[in-house]
């Protein structure tokens, strides 16, 4: 009942075109995933490749769910992974410490092609998402610079050449609170690309950065329109100074931060629209709101509501993990992929 109610709300309350999502496929597999942080893509064959925090990368198809590569330290193996993206038909996986592996498709499998190493930096780069655009590698995450005066800077996007040499940092923020530094390691950051543009968002607010991948320059930073249900994260989010108790108490707090506000849970490009998924954080509403912004004007065009976590887009289809995030939402226990097709209604 509430689906229909909010679908009606989404179709008629937003100015301009409406977006109708129709469920076209559901894949269900007996496989559990864990951990709230995730990275995922849809490959050119329409398979989901991704990983949740506590698992290695998996490939999910209609008839099968399997590890993308065996676990291990060899060139063709994968250990802990933090981000996945496409480079044409190839799949790129970011592992720890600047190790980036490129896999090419051979039949039904992905085989190792090459490893790219990002040069080590003084304070490391904690990767949350990765994209390849115009022969450049873009990483979203945290690169910290701790200053002598207590003030610290952090860059949330880094661009690198195709050999992993650092080129430029973007979305740089000043951080004054010492306790907030660690908090950024718990945050999620999102990248999405068009042919020559890179878009970046962090989970805390509806602000998007647009970068020209050809010239490696920031083009604009846009504060996106907020829907009526939007519940902003408080300024002291992730403040560790308030959490000196046992770790379990902190973890409870973390779940509250992750689910109790309109946190950005994913961002994708679908045709000429920027699709941003946020939590509604309102009792009685579906878990997530799906916001469709015009990529050129950044105007909010439509909103849809779902209980499923957006994993990626492919052609005109949107792929979701049913029930939400397995690390945060009780309903997202088993691996169930829902595929919706977008139809525009005038």
């Amino acid at each position, binding site marked *: 009942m509430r689906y229909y109610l909010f679908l009606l709300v989404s179709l008629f309350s937003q100015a301009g075109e409406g977006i109708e999502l129709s469920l076209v496929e559901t894949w269900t597999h007996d496989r559990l995933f864990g951990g709230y942080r995730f990275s995922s893509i849809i490959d050119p064959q329409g398979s989901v490749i991704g990983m949740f925090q506590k698992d290695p990368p998996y490939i999910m198809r209609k008839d099968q769910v399997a590890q993308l590569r065996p676990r291990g*330290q*060899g060139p063709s193996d994968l250990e802990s992974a933090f981000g996945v993206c496409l480079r044409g038909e190839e799949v790129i996986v970011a592992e720890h*410490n600047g190790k980036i592996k490129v896999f090419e498709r051979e039949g039904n499998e992905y085989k190792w092609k090459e*490893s*790219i190493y990002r040069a*080590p930096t003084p*304070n490391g780069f904690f990767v949350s998402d990765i994209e390849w655009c115009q022969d450049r590698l873009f990483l979203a995450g945290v690169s910290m610079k701790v200053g002598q005066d207590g003030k610290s800077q952090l860059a949330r996007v880094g661009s690198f050449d195709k050999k992993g*040499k650092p080129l430029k940092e973007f979305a740089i923020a000043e951080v004054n609170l010492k306790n907030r530094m660690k908090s950024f390691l718990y945050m999620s950051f999102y990248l999405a690309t068009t042919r020559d543009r890179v878009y970046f968002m962090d989970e805390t607010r509806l602000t998007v950065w647009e970068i020209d991948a050809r010239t490696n320059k920031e083009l604009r930073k846009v504060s996106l329109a907020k829907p009526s249900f939007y519940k902003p994260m408080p300024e002291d989010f992730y403040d560790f100074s308030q959490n000196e108790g046992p770790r379990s108490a902190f973890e409870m707090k973390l779940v509250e931060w992750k689910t109790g506000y309109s946190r950005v849970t994913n961002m994708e490009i679908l045709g000429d629209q920027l699709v941003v998924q946020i939590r509604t954080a309102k009792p009685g509403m579906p878990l997530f709101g799906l916001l469709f912004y015009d990529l050129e004007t950044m105007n909010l065009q439509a909103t849809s509501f779902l209980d499923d976590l957006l994993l990626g887009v492919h052609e005109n289809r949107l792929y979701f993990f049913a029930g939400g995030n397995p690390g945060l939402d009780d309903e997202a226990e088993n691996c169930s992929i829902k595929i919706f097709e977008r139809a525009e209604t005038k």
Partner: protein
Amino acid sequence: MNSDRIFNVIIVVLMGFVGYLAYQRLYGDADYGKRIQDIGRTMVTSREGHTVTLSSLLAQGDKTDNTHLLILELENCESCLYKGITDIQSLAKSGNHTLVVVVNDWPIEVKSWAEHYPDIPIFAMPKSTFYNHFNLSYLPAILRIEGEKVVTHRDITI
């Protein structure tokens, strides 16, 4: 009489302690010499894929020649790797003989990583070689080797 004997014993003990401290100050950790065993037979692989003994890469010449060897794993903390490489570059710049050995079973991985440092001599060492011949509890570390003997050792931490 008894008090004189006690006084002498105390003096001897104190002198022994002072001597021990002086030895430690001059020669450091007694285990240094044991940190690499059979250095002459330890094999490493160059970026070009040539296998050579580690001893053939060490500074050869008069007794004052020494080599600073950075030994690391690609999985070590990123800041520590950055610091280790920066220290090695600084040592090389000031005229020291330097080497970098990456403990990794796949020379092709080491070659990819080493592309960022074309001017540094970087070699790959199999993990089995490291565990059989090296007695280091922490990596990365910089060893100063005189001839084939480790004389100082420093863990690279942040």
